[in-house]
């Protein structure tokens, strides 16, 4: 049997080495998150020194008797607190939401290619937002786009469930096919609305830009809109972490080990819709984050969800903050849309991981 031990030096790690790797990962990822946030706030069209950023933040958060700095310039204060900080936080929330939704769906569908679009939720959210634009509701209040996006995400999942459930059971294969078909239909509907809206060039341009994702002009309102939903979604996903592990073994096996399969599936899918709705509502359509982040984490830390989900949340937040930073700095004049950066930056990174760690992908 010693040959079996020596036969696989590449993939397996002894449990203690695995634990060490996990601890190192979480420390590193948290540090990255802080650095990305500070960089995101300090870098931009007006550059602000990172020490000033920290000073402004400290003055805002800490009580005066702990920390009372010399007054910083009011312009810098406004840029940091009212413009860049909400933008960075919204990016972090959206990234965490998309990554966690992707990780969960990949578990339920036992398929590493799953993400929010396979249940039609992101297309539904996009259609909702497009409707808000073409009906000019978006121009009236910033709340309309998020509201319509949420309605779209939930409506889409509701329809997918309605189509694929039979006798209290919802087979994942049917769910997947129904989700992809309905997603295509909703995308077509959104495209139709966009093409019809071209009579008003301004609105059409706004929609097309929004469809490419972006965090421009995000305010604290957007933070407060998405924060509760992202928080609820992430907590709900952690609640089901162990059930998701078992679902990877197949529905029958997990049921025989005590998992209430249909209930877990329903909670996971609705959680994914909440997270997707929250992300799309505040960042537009940002592709690839939900796919690449959990997959990359799984290559590094393994498939156990109690590790995968929080790691995906932190890394997703980090990923989107960095992408947004690139989106607004690579060009001197104007921003590149966020969705373009996530794909352009994420895909090569993902392909690199796939090549360099191929042995550990094993059964995927």
């Amino acid at each position, binding site marked *: *049997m010693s040959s*079996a*031990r020596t036969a*696989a030096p590449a*993939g*397996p*790690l*002894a*449990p203690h080495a695995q634990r060490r790797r996990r601890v190192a990962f979480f420390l590193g990822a948290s540090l990255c998150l802080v650095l990305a946030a500070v960089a995101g706030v300090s870098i931009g069209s007006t550059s602000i020194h990172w020490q000033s950023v920290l000073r402004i933040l400290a003055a805002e958060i800490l009580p005066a008797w702990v920390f009372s700095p010399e007054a910083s310039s009011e312009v810098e204060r406004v840029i940091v607190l009212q413009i860049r900080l909400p933008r960075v936080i919204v990016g972090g929330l959206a990234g965490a939401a998309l990554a966690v939704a992707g990780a969960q769906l990949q578990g339920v569908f*036992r398929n*590493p290619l799953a993400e929010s679009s396979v249940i039609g939720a992101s297309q539904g959210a996009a259609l909702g937002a497009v409707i808000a634009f073409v009906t000019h509701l978006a121009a009236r209040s910033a709340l309309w786009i998020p509201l319509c996006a949420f309605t779209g995400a939930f409506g889409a999942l509701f329809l997918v469930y309605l189509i694929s459930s039979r006798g209290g059971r919802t087979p994942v294969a049917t769910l997947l096919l129904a989700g992809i078909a309905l997603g295509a239909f909703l995308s077509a509907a959104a495209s139709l609305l966009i093409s019809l809206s071209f009579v008003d060039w301004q609105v059409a341009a706004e929609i097309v830009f929004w469809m490419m994702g972006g965090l421009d002009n995000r305010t604290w309102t957007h933070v407060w809109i998405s924060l509760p939903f992202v928080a609820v979604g992430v907590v709900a996903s952690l*609640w089901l972490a*162990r059930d998701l*592990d*078992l679902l*990877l*073994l*197949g529905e*029958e*096996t997990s*049921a*025989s*080990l*005590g*998992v*209430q399969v249909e209930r877990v599936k329903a909670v996971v899918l609705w959680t994914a819709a909440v997270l997707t709705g929250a992300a799309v509502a505040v960042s537009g359509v940002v592709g690839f984050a939900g796919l690449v982040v959990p997959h990359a984490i*799984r290559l590094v830390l*393994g*498939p*156990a969800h109690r590790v995968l989900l929080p790691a995906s949340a932190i890394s997703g937040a980090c990923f989107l903050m960095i992408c947004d930073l690139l989106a607004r700095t690579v060009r001197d004049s104007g921003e590149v849309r966020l969705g373009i950066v996530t794909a352009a930056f994420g895909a090569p990174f993902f392909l690199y991981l796939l090549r360099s760690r191929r042995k*550990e*992908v*094993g*059964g*995927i």
Partner: protein
Amino acid sequence: MNLSLKEAGIRVDGRWLVRDVSLDLSPGRVQAVVGPNGAGKSTVLRLLAGLWKPTSGSVEMDGVQLPTMRRRAVARRVAFVPQDTHVGFAFRVREIVAMGRHPHVGRFESPGRHDSAAVDSAMDRADVRHLADRLASQLSGGERQRVLIARCLATEADFLLLDEPTANLDIDHALDTFRLLKALAAEGKAVAVALHDLNAVVRWADRVTVLNAGRLEASGPVVDVLSDHLLRAVFNVGVERLLAAAEGTALVFHPLDSAS
């Protein structure tokens, strides 16, 4: 301690998969379930595991209707090893076996000392301890099958239901598996196995239930049930019995048309 089907039947899309099947699992016995392909062997095991609800009749554990019990409560008492051994993502063997403790560990509890002891002992008994840190996706079919048996043992359930547990195993590990099942029965577990290998049934099972096209054909002690007449009627084969001194009787089958 008893798990039984009472005239149970299940109908899916208007078709009866099994009908009027009665079966009784008691501690200390290895119960084989045999029958031609599509006879309903796996269905009977799923009914016993509480995975499917009977359309007619009932499934009872110690006098309680199984469908009224909580899923986790059933899972603590009844362990099931399905035929499909596919493992999707790259879990390690120890993680897979530890999933057998799922019904015992609360949602936000971590597995305790007793849980890891149960996992270790299950891996020892199924001879997979040396594979503990390997990725399940890189194992051979036979190794994977033994990992699933280890997971089933880790549940410490009273009733063990196994669907074709030796289908992927070489003869050495198949014999080990049967010896293990026999030993578990001797320790007081109730074991039910769906099998195709009738010689294995003769050698290892205490009782056998024969299914044919979803109906109960015969049930009872192996020597009484597996008559030449029944084998001819159900499996459409002729049979000769060889007396192998150490191992008891061995059956040799031949197609009916060549026999006549």
